[in-house]
């Protein structure tokens, strides 16, 4: 009987693992050091994994086959977190890597709109409560 087929209960069974190499460093993803995060918005989906002492995020945009990998990890018992929106750190990490979304274009302020804004500012500065309006 070869070692491959031994059924020794004392022998620790090796779990599933994924690995990849990046710039000469080998990263290993195991259930105890990696998590899958899935969000409502696809672009924030990522794998959060530990290498030595540091934690890293690998976003969907960095992998061509993210869905297959996430499915493999879920079937093999890696922790999977399904969230509506990304956490603050994930959100910032994504946008630091891929840039912030451009601000929506605003309509130009007309003189009439300018007066409305001045009036709103006045209300905010001088009116503390509803009773002040009747004073």
């Amino acid at each position, binding site marked *: 009987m070869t070692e491959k087929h031994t059924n020794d209960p004392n022998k620790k069974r090796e779990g599933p693992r994924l690995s990849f190499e990046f710039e000469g460093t080998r990263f290993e993803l195991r259930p105890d050091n990696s998590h899958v995060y*899935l969000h409502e918005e696809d672009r924030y989906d990522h794998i959060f994994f530990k290498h030595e002492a540091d934690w890293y995020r690998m976003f969907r945009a960095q992998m061509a086959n993210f869905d297959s990998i*996430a*499915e493999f990890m*879920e*079937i093999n018992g890696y922790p*999977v977190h399904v969230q509506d929106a990304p956490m603050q750190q994930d959100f910032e990490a994504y946008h630091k890597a891929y840039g912030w979304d451009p601000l929506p274009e605003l309509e130009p302020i007309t003189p009439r709109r300018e007066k409305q804004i001045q009036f709103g500012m006045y209300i905010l500065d001088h009116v503390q409560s509803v009773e002040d309006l009747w004073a």
Partner: protein
Amino acid sequence: MISYPTRRGLAIPTCEVDLPPTHLNWENPNHLNNHHLEFSRRMFSHSMMLQTLRDLEFMQEMLPMDIHNMGKHNLHTIYGPPALPTPRQVMDRITDAWDTDERLHISNGRTYEYKPITHALYKQLKREYWQAK
């Protein structure tokens, strides 16, 4: 050849259609083989949604071989493939399966294995559904 009957777009169970009697033993697993209600394989391999529908655990049945696909007078010679369901009908069925933890029954070479519908897969299916819609 008439096409296999459907209900709300999905193929109905084989117990509801007319099939010849079997000469084999239902209790002998060697006399049975797996039948996909949604056939044929080629028709249902065009999209991930259709393939997932075909692979659902309760969209497959064990049938005696002589009724299923052996001899001259069997299910596949009597009935042609069922009409393709709409994306909405497929997604409704998959969502039901997702809600009830139904598994996928997938051929792995010679044997079949059960796999869960994972979050990642369900997300891909939803994305495909919105694109198809």
